[in-house]
């Protein structure tokens, strides 16, 4: 394991008072699974997807940075809770979208559910990822190369979400919200790197300006604000009209 990754793991252990356990596995999507520690599960567990083992050190560092973001105020650790009844209502609403008329009703519901839940996951994960990117850049400069590999790979995968085949079967509103958040992530990376050309696909399909609006909200919360994460999520949710679908629950370390 890279020394800087070990260093950020130590930092998490010191700040939170819980050990970090790192392993790897397959059979799940995304780069990693993370369970933050609680009195009932007194270890932070990070499981790296073996598909991404070549950038594993960065993935672990990023997960640690995300823990640090969430533990900015150890007396008020935020847990995101989806309001099931409100989300169900949204799923029912979008299931009636004209683009989905040709789908069998049972499949439509399942499909829309996966998109809406994906959107909620994106809402809580992308702001924290963006803050964690800054932390990693600062705390782990030696991981610069694999950080670039990881984020470039992520953004190239996000370009695939703009594919017309996906657009044709996704309710317009959901398509735009999903890709606006993706564009915000890409914009944030482009100003950290010099990879401006990664924005071309977002610009081509007219989604870049929506990403810029979200980036503006991200930038409006001061870096020193202990609630930077929750305030950014709330700001994005307001903009994307998702505020009624979740609530925060706070716990003590």
């Amino acid at each position, binding site marked *: *394991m890279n020394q800087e990754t070990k260093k950020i793991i130590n930092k998490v252990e010191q700040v939170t008072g819980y*050990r970090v356990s790192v392993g*790897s596995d397959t059979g799940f999507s995304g780069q990693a699974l993370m369970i933050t520690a609680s009195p*009932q599960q007194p*270890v932070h567990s990070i499981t790296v997807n073996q598909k991404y*083992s070549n950038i*594993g050190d960065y993935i672990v560092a990023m997960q640690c940075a995300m823990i640090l973001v969430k533990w900015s105020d150890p007396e008020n650790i935020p847990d995101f809770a989806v309001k099931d009844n409100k989300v169900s209502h949204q799923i029912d609403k979008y299931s009636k979208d004209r683009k989905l008329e040709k789908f069998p009703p049972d499949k439509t519901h399942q499909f829309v559910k996966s998109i809406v839940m994906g959107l909620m996951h994106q809402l809580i994960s992308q702001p924290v990822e963006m803050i964690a990117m800054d932390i990693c850049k600062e705390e782990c400069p030696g991981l610069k190369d694999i950080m670039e590999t990881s984020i470039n790979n992520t953004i190239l995968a996000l370009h695939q979400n*703009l594919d017309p085949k996906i657009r044709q079967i996704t309710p317009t509103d959901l398509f735009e919200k999903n890709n606006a958040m993706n564009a915000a992530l890409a914009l944030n990376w482009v100003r950290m790197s010099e990879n401006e*050309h990664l924005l071309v696909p977002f610009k*081509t399909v007219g989604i870049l300006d929506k990403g810029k609006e979200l980036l503006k909200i991200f930038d409006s919360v001061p870096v020193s604000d202990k609630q930077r994460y929750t305030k950014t999520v709330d700001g994005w949710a307001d903009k994307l009209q998702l505020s009624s679908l979740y609530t925060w629950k706070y716990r003590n370390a």
Partner: protein
Amino acid sequence: MTLDPIKFIFELNELPENYKDAPQNKVREAVTSFFKNYFRPIGGEVAVEFKDDLVTVQWFPSSLAETEKAVDEAVNLLEKGKVYQGEIILAELYKRFPAHPVILFNYGMILSDKGKLNEAIDLLSKLIEINPEDYRGLNALAVAHIRKGDREKARSELEKSYQLNPEDPYTLRNLGSLVANESPEEALSYFEKAVELLPDDPQTQYGYGLCLKELGRYDEADPILKRIAELSPYTDLAERAKSARNEIASITMRRETGTEPRIDAVMYCLAALKKFNELGNQKAQTITYEIAMLGRDGLNINNPEKKYTLKSMPGEFTGMQLISYMYVGLKQMDPNLDPGIDLENEYKTALDMFGKE
């Protein structure tokens, strides 16, 4: 800094309104010209393809006409783990230069890694037709056959490769892996040579360590398998090496007591049963979870000097003590769970004693 290539697809009707009524050829010209102008300042090559209403835009860091430079860039991306980016370049290069050996080799290997085995075998076979003495190509072809389950063809290709270059470490490694199940002794002879040539290659070290384990040379196998986690963290290989080390630890543990229960483990299991009974299910689960997580990095069960601490339970514990607690905790949650170590006799004996107390 070299920029990564990109590829994306969009529909013509996603263009701004003022394009909608323009004649199709004019729209295509305008779109192509837009992207060419856009990318001109950063160089490279733009490819814009139209199929019905779909537009595929690709940008490559070098002009593909400068074939060798583009191939080098693709290989460089693959080495950095940017497989998708490398694949974009190689796929386009292959369309234009379908008989270029380096393209066939690298693109064939990507297809093989992605599980597109028939296509991989086609490309790599074509490479061998062009250059029958390409032992690296034969090796890659053999790997594709192994992945497809055709061990005979794989062996035949590997033997050809071995005849061409008996010192190629990858051929030695792959031959070793191929015969390891049936004949660990024969495999060992290949691995012994391969580890000298590839001392830091995790697959070679793993194959070598596993052969030593199969041959009962546990003391030699364990440090080799331990090194895999350092050489290749976050991989399936590292997890398999951990499992192999756990097996070695279990075998070593049993060497002294044979089939008889280990008294220390019985006492630890009994202590765990008492402790969990006193603390209740939820606390027992918390302790079990913490030990299981700690155990992901490996607990030394054969060294009573090594001590561990937990957040959920005060005190210092040996590896065997923690494993016994974890075993009991998991069995109490679900008797069918596999805790990854065999303490069944010890657990049953402890349960009998606990019932009698």
